[in-house]
């Protein structure tokens, strides 16, 4: 990936969230990944608790479950499908 491509990806990601296009958000993730948002306080103290941690084999399936609440309220039909794993 070039620097320009990385920048374009970052901006597209931010615009997607700014516009609350949550159904498109999972498209930014690879199929299998661990997604962790760790508070600096925990990281510095060597604590692993994150806000949140998800390990997934298929991130699209995970988000269709995890965000069904919000997506449902916005009138989007949550997808079906499995294969998410919690760490």
């Amino acid at each position, binding site marked *: 990936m070039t620097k320009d491509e990385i920048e374009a990806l970052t901006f597209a990601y931010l615009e997607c969230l700014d516009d609350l296009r949550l159904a498109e958000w999972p498209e930014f993730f690879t199929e299998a990944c661990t997604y962790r*948002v760790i*508070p600096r*306080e*925990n990281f510095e*103290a060597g*604590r*692993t*608790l*994150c*806000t*949140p*941690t*998800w390990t997934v084999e298929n991130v699209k*399936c*995970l988000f269709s*479950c*995890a965000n*069904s*609440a919000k997506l*449902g309220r916005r009138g989007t039909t*949550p997808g*079906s*499908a*499995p*294969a*998410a*794993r*919690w*760490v």
Partner: protein
Amino acid sequence: MDAAPVAPTRLWPADETGRVPYWVYTDPGIYARELERIWYGPHWLYVGLEAEVPEVGDWRTTTLGERPVFMVRSAPDTISVVENRCRHRGVKFCQARAGRSEQLICPYHQWAYALDGSLIGVPFRRGVRRQGGMPPDFDPKEWGLNRLRVEVVNGVLWATFSDATPPFREYLGEKFCRHYTRVYDRRKLAVLGYNRQHIPANWKLTQENIKDPYHAGLLHVFFVTFGLSRADQKSAVEMDAEGRHGILISRKGEQEVNDVTASMPNFQADLKLADPRIMDVVKEFPGEETVGMITVFPSVILQQQINSLTTRQIIPKGPGGFDFVWTHWCYADDPPEMRLRRTRQANLFGPAGFVSADDGEVIEMSQQGLAPVPQDAALVTMGGREIGDTQHMVTETAIRGKYHYWRKVMGL
């Protein structure tokens, strides 16, 4: 001493227990009186866990009411809570969250305090070459950091600004001592990690959210969908004799469609967790309850949601907002798989939790709606107008109980 008078228009509605006027969440005079009579009055405030300061010299900073404090291990068997405010010029002299030191030193003029708050060093106290210095009547013993009364109760540290506060167990009451010791059972605790968030809503709304089981099966799609909270499951709401502390108890339900789910528009029977390990519940406490959410007035929510154990500390920041600090903990002797289970379940809670994110958002929306109309009032008559323990979830009795006590303390 009350900092500000309460406006004469602040009268309680005629429906005494059934309504809560919105000015309780917005009025700066009310808020000032709350600080004096509630936060700095005869109430125990949550400070932290004993496990956070294991060695002599270990300290953490936090805020009680609006006052910054240290919790510090001042001797092997003593934890002190002293105000983080230099007695010289009022400096909040420690800005860090945690550390370890032999003394507490203010950077402004290097006044030095022992770990228990005693003043032990004042540079140039006797002047320089017989010039200047403190007057002869200056007695360092009178100028230690303000020290709070402290109790450590089964691993949790509590402090109070008032001499009138009864001992902690008496403050909690016999019934709530039983609820408390079900989870805080003298085993050693350990910290898994923290979450912090600011919620732009009055501090009282967060305890009311936990005193309101009515919303749990309606707002929280995740709970409803995956069978953790249902209006038809066995549950109970209990209060202490004063109405100030509350507990919400429930038992895990099954995901099934019936007449109750029909009134839950958020119920989605077709959704299944692909990996249900986040809901992998292990029975570990006596009784059949899977949830015990205790609101200890005024400062904390003690959470036991299945295997997730958390303290949620409330730090008021004016009438329109509060900081919310989540300390996720485990037992020190938990095997690794139990720590992992608790860590997984922590995904449900905190600022981005599948469940708790809903609460933070909805009480912010409450504040937005009620702030412009302080003369209007909320309706809290679900389950009647009585104040008393119930064996179901369709009630707002614990909110009514809280305001019964709040009005007494506030003189309103």
